[in-house]
């Protein structure tokens, strides 16, 4: 188990990297150099950072189309990420994937899926393999509240509980599936309450900050590593921007602007910065800007894949 406290400097560096990357996306999106959908994590990044920092290097991650924070928090290559957004052949999947399908096998970050909930059973299957091979590692599966609308989520949870598989489900509950609230879609109690009925530890956490997420995930990972079977952590959070794209959607009338003000007031990027010395913050910020500039330059100077690349990487 990870002991003591989270490394705040590292956490801040990751948070800042994710935030600045996404702000950069917002800044350049209208130039249409990223010719594909993006699902921003802004406002939710600290869940990914707290969770990923609590894991071991050989643990395996499954994410989804809102994966920028997961990927970068896990230590996925910033350069390959940017090149992929640009659709270049130096991207992590040679431009064939884009923002919705981030992957970095160097850090055991599995290819992300844009079909809601569909990677959840894949994560469970990976955990089954880990158990069959008596491996130490655990699988972590990030998913949204909307994913719990899908039957496959519950089927997967059942199997994971049945076979006591080494997997941690992290439900990032931002309260919405696109513009539809959880209460509009789901009967009964919370996702974690229902999950608990499978006989697994499952708990609900209202807007936990980075340090708390780190603690929760460290403890859960520890129990899972000891062979106690799966767990689920449901954490509420708030997405600041539109479901997809880079707009603000608070003018659409489906959610109150006060919610965003509240979320901005507890911004973990600001909170973590406040725990560091101004000199530390400045140094990290400068480093992030330099890394970001280098990554974007890498993307800009990369080549588009040639037409000979269309057919590769499939079987038939």
């Amino acid at each position, binding site marked *: 188990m990870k002991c003591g406290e989270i490394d705040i400097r590292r956490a801040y560096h990751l948070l800042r990297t994710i935030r600045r990357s996404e702000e950069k996306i917002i800044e350049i999106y209208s130039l249409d150099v990223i010719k594909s959908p993006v699902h921003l994590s802004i406002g939710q990044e600290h869940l990914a950072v707290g969770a990923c920092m609590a894991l071991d290097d050989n643990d395996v991650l499954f994410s989804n189309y809102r994966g920028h924070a997961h990927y970068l928090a896990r230590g996925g290559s910033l350069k390959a990420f940017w090149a992929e957004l640009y659709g270049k052949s130096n991207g992590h999947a040679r431009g064939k994937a884009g923002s919705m399908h981030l992957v970095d096998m160097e850090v055991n970050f599995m*290819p992300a899926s844009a079909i809601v909930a*569909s990677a959840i059973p*894949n994560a469970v299957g990976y955990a089954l393999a880990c158990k069959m091979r008596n491996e130490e590692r655990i699988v972590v599966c990030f998913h949204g509240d909307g994913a719990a609308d899908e039957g496959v989520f519950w089927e*997967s949870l059942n199997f994971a509980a049945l076979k006591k598989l080494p997997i941690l489900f992290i439900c990032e509950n931002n309260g919405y599936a696109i513009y539809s609230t959880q209460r509009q879609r789901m009967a009964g109690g919370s996702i974690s309450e229902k999950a608990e009925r499978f006989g697994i530890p499952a708990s609900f956490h209202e807007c936990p900050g980075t340090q708390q997420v780190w603690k929760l995930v460290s403890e859960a990972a520890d129990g899972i590593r000891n062979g106690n079977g799966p767990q689920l952590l449901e954490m509420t959070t708030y997405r600041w921007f539109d479901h997809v794209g880079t707009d603000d959607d608070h003018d659409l009338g489906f959610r109150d602007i006060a919610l965003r003000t509240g979320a901005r007031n507890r911004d973990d990027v600001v909170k973590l910065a406040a725990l560091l010395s101004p000199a530390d913050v400045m140094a990290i910020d400068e480093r992030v800007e330099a890394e970001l500039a280098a990554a974007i330059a890498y993307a800009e100077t990369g080549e588009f894949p040639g037409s000979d690349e269309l057919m590769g990487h499939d*079987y*038939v």
Partner: protein
Amino acid sequence: MLSYGAALLEAIEQEMERDQSVFVMGQGVDDQKGQYGSTLGLHKKFGAARNFDTPIAEDAMTGIAVGAALAGMRPVHVHQRMDFLMLCMNQLVNMAAKYSYMSAGQVSVPMVVRASIGRSWGQGPQHSQAPYPFFMHVPGLKVLAPTTPHDAKGSLIAAIRDDTPVLIVEHRLLYGNQGIVPATEFEIEFGKARILRKGSHVTLVGVSYTVVDCLRAASMLASCGIDAEVIDLLSLAPLDSAAVLESAARTGRLVVVDNSWVTCGAGAELLARLQESPLGEHVRAKRLGYAPVTCPTTRPLEDIFYPSPRSVAVEAMKLCGRDPADLGELAVAREIEEFKGPF
């Protein structure tokens, strides 16, 4: 001699012996019947963890097989009916088939899906379907439909060793068929059809059990002096259109008998490829398959729903410019008459 079911069992036993990452999962695989004998006793020989019954949750269980395959295992997921694969479409089409391409080859999904298909004895609308064309449509999936015990064994071994998701379609009336099967391990070749009977007047192409229809049709045709070539497609994706076109170039006549509906079937694809080839104008061709309607349960309607040796022979006669009335009596399809369920 081994039965088709026993050949599958021998294949999986040899693969599980050879490779620790191979395992079997599916509803009823560890029960007393063991999927027509094809998984019988595997859990006793290799442990319960390597041959296990699953919840009735086809969607997640397919996804779990995909995930295990992503982790480097080689799962074989067995389904009692191919109809149930409709609940697995998302995982097979959106996930299994996509992972390799969308990661530019960084991961692969070496999984096998076995599914029984089958006619006769009142399987009715929801237990009789063989929608393999859905899967032939999707890049990233391979589809095999072995007809003989020999090819059943070779298909399963090839599928397990392949890094692609492979679907194997097994007709329930074939499980009891006996044939010569090498005791050693061997693989069939993907994308290679088999010529089961040489002939010069007409080419009959079948898929799984309709190959049996074609062979019987060939005997009926022989008694009318027509020499039919019979091709077992075996590999549906990739599809060996070259073998079919080569044969049709020699015979000038082609009948493709799908084991599913005709529209968008293997026959549709083969005839399209024929038409696109220089042979197009020289070969007369015809497609056969299920009647374009839901499968009925009652026997008299079931009998006319499916293609039969007679319907195949009739079309061949017509292509040869002969009167179908000259066809002799049909040998009884023993396996259809003998099959009495219980399901």
